[in-house]
């Protein structure tokens, strides 16, 4: 934390620990008076702060520590545990959600920053009992093994199809390149996306 303290890492660690000298210095730097002409942003925290999130079409009133990530808020405060914490630094995609139509790693966003946006999580893709065709295609093509990466991948595929309803194989690959799966389900995921977008899955060799 010596140079370049991001808002997130600052908020995630700063706060109550006035006892720690290094943190106190960081806090000093962070609360330096704003430069002239820069509008002051309201100070939030260190106490818990009210926030209202719109998740899957429902308003959720929460009271969170300002350092809480959107991912933690969804998982711990909203009981929406579909999004997973796997890397906590935007390198796996397991925490993917759709915010105002954009695919976002919810581990990299503060819950407070998500106020006023529309958040869709994997739990919000099915309409009641009716699954998103993409979800059905995942099940049909066995595009999941342990399933831990699956919610993030389903969301990433949904975001891809929303932007590009008929993606080519290479567009699918790059569209999903922010997600990883350790069990190795990628090829079946490609087939699920192809099928959900009305295209033919990739066929293996015919018997010889």
């Amino acid at each position, binding site marked *: 934390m010596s140079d370049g303290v991001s808002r997130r890492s600052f908020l995630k*660690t700063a*706060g*109550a*620990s006035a*006892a*720690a000298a*290094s*943190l106190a210095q960081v806090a000093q730097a962070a609360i330096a008076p704003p430069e002239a002409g820069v509008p002051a942003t309201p100070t939030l925290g260190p106490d818990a702060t009210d926030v209202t999130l719109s998740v899957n079409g429902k308003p959720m009133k929460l009271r969170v*520590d300002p350092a809480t990530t959107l991912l*933690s808020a969804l*998982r*711990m405060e909203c009981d*929406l*545990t*579909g999004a*997973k914490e*796997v*890397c*906590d*630094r935007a*390198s*796996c995609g397991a925490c993917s959600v759709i915010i105002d139509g954009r695919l976002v790693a919810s581990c990299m966003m503060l819950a407070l920053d998500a106020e006023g946006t529309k958040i869709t999580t*994997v739990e919000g893709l099915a309409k009641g*009992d*009716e*699954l998103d065709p993409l979800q*059905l295609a*995942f*099940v049909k*093509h*066995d595009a*999941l*093994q*342990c*399933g*831990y990466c699956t*919610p993030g991948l389903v969301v990433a595929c949904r975001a891809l199809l929303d932007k590009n309803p008929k993606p080519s194989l290479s567009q*699918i*690959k790059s569209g*999903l*390149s922010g997600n*990883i*799966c*350790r*069990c*190795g*389900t*990628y*090829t*079946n*995921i*490609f*087939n699920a996306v192809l099928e959900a977008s009305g295209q033919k*899955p*990739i*066929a*293996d*060799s015919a*018997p*010889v």
Partner: protein
Amino acid sequence: MTATKTDVSTMPTTNRPMNAGQSVADDASRLDGIAKVTGAAKYGRDKYPAGCLFAAFIRCPWGKAELVSHSADEVQKLPGVVEVNVSRKEGLYHGRDMGYICADSPLALKRAMEALRPVWKRGEVKTLIEDDIDKEPEPDVDTGKLLDAAPLKLEAIYSTACQTHSSLETHGCVVDHQGDSATVWASTQGTFSFRDGLGEALKLDAGQFEVKCEYIGGGFGSKLGGPGKEGLLAARLSQKLRKPVYVFCDRREEHLDTGNRPSSRTLVRLGVQRDGTIVGGQIQTWGGVGVARGGGGCTVPSNRYKLGQISKDHKDIAFNAGGPRAMRAPGHPQGSFAEELMLDEVATLAKIDPLDLRMRLASSVLQEQMRLGAKLIGWEDRKLTGSQTGVIRTGYGLGTASWGSAGSLAEAEVIIHRDGSVEARTGAQDIGTGYRTIMAIVAAEAIGVPVGIVRCSVGSSRLPSGPGSGGSITSPIMAPTMRMAAEDAREKLLAVVATAKKVELAALRIDAGEILLDAKAIMSFKDACGLLPSDAITGRNAGRKRAEERGHSNGVQFVKATVDTETGVIRVQRVIAIQSCGKVLCRKTAESQIIGGVIQGLSYAMFENRLLDRVTGAMVNPNFEWYRILGPNDMPHIEPVLWSKGQTKVCALGEPPVIPTAGALAAAVFNAIGAPVRSTPMSPDKVLAAVASGAKNERGAPAVNPPPNGKPENKKPGGGA
């Protein structure tokens, strides 16, 4: 279609025509598929009981360090901090637990960790197998003579880097102790060994608490063998504080201290006849086991090939790093990497086709599988090793696998309810293999009903006990066990029908959901269940011994890859993975096991490397940015081929498909560029070095490779491990 109406047991696909009709249930998808794609599936890490406390270990940040001072007393006073305990003074590897902190929220815990401000005194470290090798061991006298007499000789050193399991759900559990009972939500590959290891810490008898693991986010071997330090910490704290306690590693801890596939080094000296016959030689292997006492085995020779008189020796080397744990086919991918590339080098020495060489050395089953694979991959398009001159060169390679499976006995129950539903019950866990689905298929087939009406309960210590998911034994053990329980339930139901209808029991059968009397349908299964005098009948395998069955799984993989000789980048184009596993129960999950094995094998071959700083011993890449695993963009087309010829028993499938991939890719790269890359990960720098060493003559020049994982001249930070 709706979630409630969707019958996932009948979802036919047609894109893998080779495998059509090869399994008991071709069209069945995973029974838990919908729970997983909707986010409804709850893993251990998804449990946050009300009032839950959070605990984590304090970790040694260096390969060797002494804890000189810390601010535990001040940390204890911070808001939200429940307990701080520093219990160890010296750490011998990065990630060693030195104590723990418990707090009332994840953020309070994080702040407390930051505020602990430990001061460390670093010590000298060793980080490589090579740190312990001064001189290559000489062959014994007889082997030396044999080598001297051979007209052709191969001498080479192969090495593989340390691979972490990288399960996406990290290790840990949540324990809720309520005084005289407890609930434990665990991420484990062994429900029952987890339970057995926890009683003492909980101060409860096994019957007083339940270990649940309905869903597990991967394990690959690292979550076998009991509750581990995370489980014990959660159990002790919850027992003491009488509150639920949540302990899950973060990604960094997961890389550092939850096991790995150890690094390996293999010295090969082989004597070869001019016709390619291998007369024998010396194989010396080393395993880099970190602070562990063993577990570094490297399975070469594999005994799949006739290699003549081999004198083999192995040594485990300790250094300052976290120790290994079983990882999918422990020791085998390491050995196979050396063995398959070695065979291609021998073939090139003797100027013969490496496929022909293997045909001469391998068993008849493998020969047959090789013939099929060669056709599918287009082996006839393969160019001679070292003959290509373009920038992008194409290579073909192959490797083989085998795995045994032995029988033992476990427990299972099948309950038939009066409403016509069926429940298969087994406490063993589904770590992503499809176990839950496979057990339902077995029960359905044994009773004679569609899979769609069978529910399967898994992953609880309150259910009938089963084995841990390790060594590919779960299905071989549990399929016959579940079958016996289902047959028992079926017979009990038929006895009720026989009495009610006043017919001979022996004349009754169940097929496709119909009760047959002398092969004529007399009533539906559902109506028959309505005759039950009680709510349900339970079938058990108890007391019935299964015959000791042994089966063997064999596999062959072919890889086609291109190598960019200007950038050193390898792109895998296509993989054909032929695998036998006995009688296939569920086509789709079997295909997935094979595909997953191939993907992990490619990832191992091209990217994965636990990198230890040579000076501090710290792992420099304990994350997913710099510890790279294969992603969507790296994907070739993979064709899993289920080999059914002569298959009757249920045999191993989890381990074998991960064995041959890295070696097959190494052979393909060698074929493309004419010089071997003898160490994993086969990163661009190593590929370029191999290209630069040159394939001067058509059949491959002697390879001059930088010593894989070699000892750097001066110790600089950032060296490889």
